[in-house]
């Protein structure tokens, strides 16, 4: 399996004991603990109670909590999202699951017109404590309709929170926070992260929404990466080390609200910000983070650092492997970009070695 971090920040930060477990199991623990703690929490969606249990993340939960609290639904994403909202308004804490983020396009109306607006529109009379789990697909020919990462659409809308943890520790801690949060939280998982392992405390803990994490410290450039791109950025950091460049890698974890303070502290130190999104660029998280960085510098009258971004190619995602590989940023392309930013345009070109086999190549399903 692909272990993400040798020394996870989780490990040092938490006082309690930790174990090395998979992202998907960390999620499962969060559900199990929170459902045991709070009878108002329930989990539903297509396939949550079959023998595969959403890649294992829901296995055993129906046996433990019964069919009222863990159940599958018809294929009706729009209404089922409304159902989740209604139950949340009634005081429950639903967790609704979509096995692909692409399918959330079917329930945008409920999420944007209803979930995001109810608390404000009703002037606080109503709360919508809802978690919408959704998975970004990638690799093995998922293609145009099974690979989209649409977080910027949700970041755009006041009233929604958006979180996209990239390791097992944050997956569990953010899920617990999301379940306890009184707002609709779009919880973004990534198919390729599920089998990655990380150190996770044995005791329950929250990872606060709205707080970024510095994954590795560095002095030469700040790389902010989202979701699965965190893994690529950490690999890129290794490449960069081999040529004496010391990158600080930051995972915003929560995409909305954004913790720009942590990012800017780093950028002030390094003078360079490379934002690597796991999504298209236009009107994306990348444009927002770069714009805010620029605005904050102007505000404080400091000179604007070198800013750049990477993300999906501006195309639909193709299925065939050679084109799919080009569609995504990877450790090497990130390293090269960071190299150019630190060495200046005239630096000689550099080709990092080809990466070893990663979770991307290893993935062959199940989908």
């Amino acid at each position, binding site marked *: 399996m692909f272990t993400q971090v040798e020394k996870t920040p989780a490990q040092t930060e938490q006082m309690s004991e930790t174990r090395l477990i998979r992202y998907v199991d960390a999620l499962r623990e969060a559900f199990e603990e929170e459902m045991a703690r709070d009878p108002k929490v*329930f989990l539903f969606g297509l396939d949550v109670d079959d023998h595969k249990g959403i890649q294992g993340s829901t296995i055993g939960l129906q046996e433990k909590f019964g069919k*009222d609290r863990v159940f599958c*639904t*018809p294929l*009706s994403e*729009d*209404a*089922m*999202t*409304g*159902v*989740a*909202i*209604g*139950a*949340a*308004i*009634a*005081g*429950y804490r*639903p967790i609704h699951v979509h096995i692909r983020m692409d399918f959330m396009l079917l329930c945008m*109306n*409920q999420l944007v*017109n*209803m979930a995001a607006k*109810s*608390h*404000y*529109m*009703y*002037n*606080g*009379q*109503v*709360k*919508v*404590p809802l978690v919408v789990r959704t998975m970004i697909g990638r690799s093995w020919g998922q293609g145009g309709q099974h690979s989209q990462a649409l977080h910027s659409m949700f970041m755009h809308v*006041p*009233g929604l*929170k958006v979180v996209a943890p990239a390791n097992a520790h944050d997956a569990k801690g953010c899920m617990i926070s999301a379940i306890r949060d*009184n*707002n609709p939280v779009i919880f973004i998982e990534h198919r390729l992260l599920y089998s990655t392992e990380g150190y996770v405390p044995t005791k329950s803990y929250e990872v606060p929404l709205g707080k970024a994490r510095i994954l590795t410290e560095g002095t030469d450039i700040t790389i902010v990466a989202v979701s699965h791109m965190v893994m690529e950025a950490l690999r890129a950091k290794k490449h960069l080390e081999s040529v004496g460049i010391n990158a600080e890698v930051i995972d915003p974890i929560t995409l909305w609200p954004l913790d720009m303070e942590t990012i800017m502290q780093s950028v002030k130190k390094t003078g360079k910000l490379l934002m690597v999104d796991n999504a298209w660029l236009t009107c994306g998280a990348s444009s927002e983070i770069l714009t805010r960085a620029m605005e904050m510098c102007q505000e404080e009258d400091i000179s604007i650092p070198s800013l750049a971004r990477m993300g999906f190619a501006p195309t639909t995602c193709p299925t065939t492997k050679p084109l799919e590989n080009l569609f995504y940023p990877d450790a090497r392309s990130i390293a090269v970009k960071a190299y150019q930013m630190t060495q200046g345009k005239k630096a000689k070109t550099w080709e990092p070695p080809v990466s070893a086999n990663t979770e991307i190549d290893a993935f062959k399903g199940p989908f």
Partner: protein
Amino acid sequence: MYDQIITARLYKTMLLIRQIELRIAEIYYTDAIKSPVHLSVGQESIAVGVCDALEKDDIVSNTYRCHATYIAKGGNLFEMMAELYGKATGCAGGKAGSMHLVDIKNGVMGASAVVGTTIPVATGYALAMQNEAKITGKQRVVVALCGDGGTEEGCFYESINFAALRKLPIIFICENNRLAIHTPLEKRWATDQLCERIATFGIKTHKIDDADVFTIRDTMVNALADIRKGSGPIFIECATYRWLEHVGPLDDHKDDYRNTKEYQTWKDNDQILRLGKMLDEKTRIQLEDEVALTLQQIEKFAEESPYPAAEELYTHVYAS
């Protein structure tokens, strides 16, 4: 036959709705209400027949045409009027306006300006109540209202299927005025067999053609008894007629997109007139006076209430 007490109560509530809405129409030209208003004038018997059968802790979910049900369910009238005026004392502090009246305490769960979208939300509320009843032992019920147009949205069928599948404590009510804005049913429905269709989901259905407030109430009373015993969802289609324009204060029969003869038939069938005649005059006049007084009070309250302060723009974006 209904006794005088119930008749009086139904009459008063229908009259209250009618008078409040006609007053809204009257003062609309002053621009005190800066909000699109979708009036239910002519359709009152549905809201009243339905809500009179409910208990306070039952829930209704509404469309943007929500004044009637809000009033019938016992929503706070002062807060309603203040909301239309955009005042801080409104049921949503002026943030929601006419299309989104809410009063959770009195079982009005809100209303949406996007047709059909409250139907699944109400269904989810019913799911919560079904679970809740397993602990409390008391089965509260949700009523989800929608127009004939609302039944054309996919989420209507998705909700119906889910509610039937899980036997949820919900009553779906279609207020069928055969119009969506100006477009008649015939241009939107392939056939007129809505109840037959809903029945194929294993749901008991009722079609009420004459807007008779007693029939509606009776149907509701029976439906509620069944649902509280665990029957699962029930569907009621109520024919009705919208007297005024789709949105705004005016009668638009001059616009010639609908039949004035039909209008006359429905006016002759007006349930407020009918019940008024069933009451002794003293009672009737007393009720009318009470309604008139309420009207004055709520209007005064709305007028005199302050507008929200500027900082209110930023409150309640996120719940703490």
